[in-house]
């Protein structure tokens, strides 16, 4: 039974009250967060208030919805009305949204118990959570390693058993990579299926909110709850079917595509874990086929050009006038804006704004932005051709396991290269899920990525679920931290 289903049953069967459950989580957060730095804001009062409402419903014999009373966390770039939302940037410290993001509005209406806001790389720009102005979240498997990024806090909280599930955002792998580093399931849904309204924008054509959970079934439950059409998001489509309906279907006969381009420069132990997973799939009756994705080699520079271009525009709004940090001393309005931004943004954010400004500036637009968009189209076509030959594509999620602390501080390009396997999916708007598939010799988790065609979220979750059922005793390890029920 998945964790969300199990806790829901405990509540319905009155084995534990929601108030007791929430108190347990809050007490554990107070102890564990000192080690993990997973939360940047603990919302104990909000959580307890919701828990009491849930207990009221239980005592009146009312039916609970699937996520009702389940303690969870939100990445700190998801707007929460009356609760500080900082994107882990000094420029937004003290900012209190006046409206809820649609995903939080949906979950709040289901009485989801918000334990707090989760740590992240500043404005979701990073792969280790270390660009956070609060310091990075640490990996519950080894606190000398990062939890990953940018949704590192949500992953650390879920793996450390101080949240049942979390919502992160994935612009170039920011849900899947921390899920992979922390031995969890991370789903990046098809672009457009989950509303981005209230998600503080990094790169609008790439951003997508997704769940981080301890099982595939939980990912499906959360995804089904949040993938609704939203008129406040002009790119909103909603999902086309409930993923939980087909989660447990037999996968005999499905075709799994393996592209050699996804295995170049991958660490040997990671490659071996994926090869073992392929044997599991074959034992389940799946057929493994070779495919080619020739445009994959350009995905990383294309991603950085497009993401930074969009970021330079999206982050133009932080001028110190209406909200957030404002420099205390300035000569004129231009000086105020420049000083506010320079003092408020961290180094990596400024670097990406500068790159984005450069590729959009007169004389360079055609050479960089326009070409990157053309290559984006070519990559989309490349995936379309691949999906004529297979149902899903499998690759590692990250070429390695969790980085040691400060790895990303050395060289920006070396760090960007670690995103090489996750960014193609965002460029093409496809769904992908990261599922644990083993451990390295240090005991750090390895992740496998299952990619689907557009709107095939149900298909990738079905494939992930069937694999998980065979190997769950070998790919999951419940850490002896936090709340264990």
């Amino acid at each position, binding site marked *: 039974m998945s964790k969300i289903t199990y806790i829901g049953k405990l509540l319905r069967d009155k084995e534990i009250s929601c108030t007791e459950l929430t108190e347990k989580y809050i007490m554990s957060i107070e102890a564990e967060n000192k080690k993990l730095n997973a939360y940047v804001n603990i919302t104990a009062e909000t959580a307890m208030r919701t828990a009491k409402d849930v207990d009221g419903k239980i005592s009146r014999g009312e039916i609970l919805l699937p996520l009702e009373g389940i303690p969870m966390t939100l990445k700190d770039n998801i707007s929460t009305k009356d609760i500080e939302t900082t994107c882990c940037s000094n420029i937004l410290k003290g900012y209190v949204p006046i409206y809820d993001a649609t995903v939080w509005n949906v979950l709040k209406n289901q009485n989801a118990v918000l334990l707090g806001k989760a740590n992240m790389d500043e404005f979701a720009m990073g792969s280790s959570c270390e660009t956070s102005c609060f310091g990075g979240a640490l990996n519950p498997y080894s606190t000398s390693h990062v939890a990953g990024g940018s949704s590192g806090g949500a992953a650390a909280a879920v793996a450390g058993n101080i949240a049942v599930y979390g919502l992160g955002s994935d612009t170039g792998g920011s849900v899947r990579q921390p899920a992979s580093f922390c031995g969890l399931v991370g789903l990046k849904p098809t672009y457009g299926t989950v509303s981005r309204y209230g998600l503080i924008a990094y790169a609008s054509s790439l951003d997508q909110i997704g769940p981080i959970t301890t099982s595939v079934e939980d990912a499906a439950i959360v995804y089904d709850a949040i993938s609704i059409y939203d008129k406040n998001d002009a*790119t909103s489509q909603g999902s086309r079917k409930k993923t939980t309906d087909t989660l447990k279907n037999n996968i005999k006969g499905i075709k799994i595509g393996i592209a050699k381009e996804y295995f170049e420069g991958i660490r040997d132990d990671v490659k071996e874990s994926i090869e073992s997973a392929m044997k599991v799939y074959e034992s389940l009756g799946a057929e493994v086929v070779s495919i080619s994705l020739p445009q994959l080699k350009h995905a990383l*520079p294309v991603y950085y*050009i497009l993401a930074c271009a969009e970021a330079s525009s999206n982050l133009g709004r932080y001028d110190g*006038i209406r909200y957030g940090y404002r420099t205390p001393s*300035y000569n004129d309005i231009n000086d105020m804006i*420049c000083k506010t931004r320079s003092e408020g943004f961290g180094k990596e954010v400024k670097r990406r704004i500068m790159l984005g400004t450069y590729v959009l500036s007169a004389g360079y637009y055609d050479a*960089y932005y326009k070409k990157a968009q053309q290559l984006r*189209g070519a990559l*989309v076509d490349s995936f379309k051709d691949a999906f004529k030959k297979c149902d899903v594509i499998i690759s590692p999620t990250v070429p390695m396991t969790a980085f040691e602390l400060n790895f990303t501080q050395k060289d*920006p390009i070396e760090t960007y290269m670690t995103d090489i396997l996750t960014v193609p999916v965002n460029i093409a708007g496809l769904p992908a899920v990261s599922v644990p598939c083993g451990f390295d010799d240090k005991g750090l988790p390895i992740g496998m990525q299952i990619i689907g065609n557009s709107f095939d979220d149900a298909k990738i979750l079905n494939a992930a679920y069937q694999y998980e059922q065979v190997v769950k005793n070998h790919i999951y390890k419940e850490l002896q931290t936090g709340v264990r029920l």
Partner: protein
Amino acid sequence: MITRDDIIKIARLAKLSVEDDEIEALTHDMAEIIGFADTISSAVQDGFEDFDDINNITNAFHEDEVQESFDRELILKNRDGGEQGCFLVKKRSGRIK
């Protein structure tokens, strides 16, 4: 090749102040990143078309109806309540460059 003057120009366009002691490191980092971005220059071939949508999504328009908006006082809360219903900045001479 990106130069010190390029960095100053980009920073001005991006509304960022760059201190003298930051320019050298930024020039080095930006040169490296732009060199990496340059790897796409030979990748675009004839017949590649402009791309402007994902998953064939077109804007999901809704009716342009007057709806309840946010209260002005609520909006100003994030700037200490503002003054006379407006955002307040210190009076300074100069114009936006």
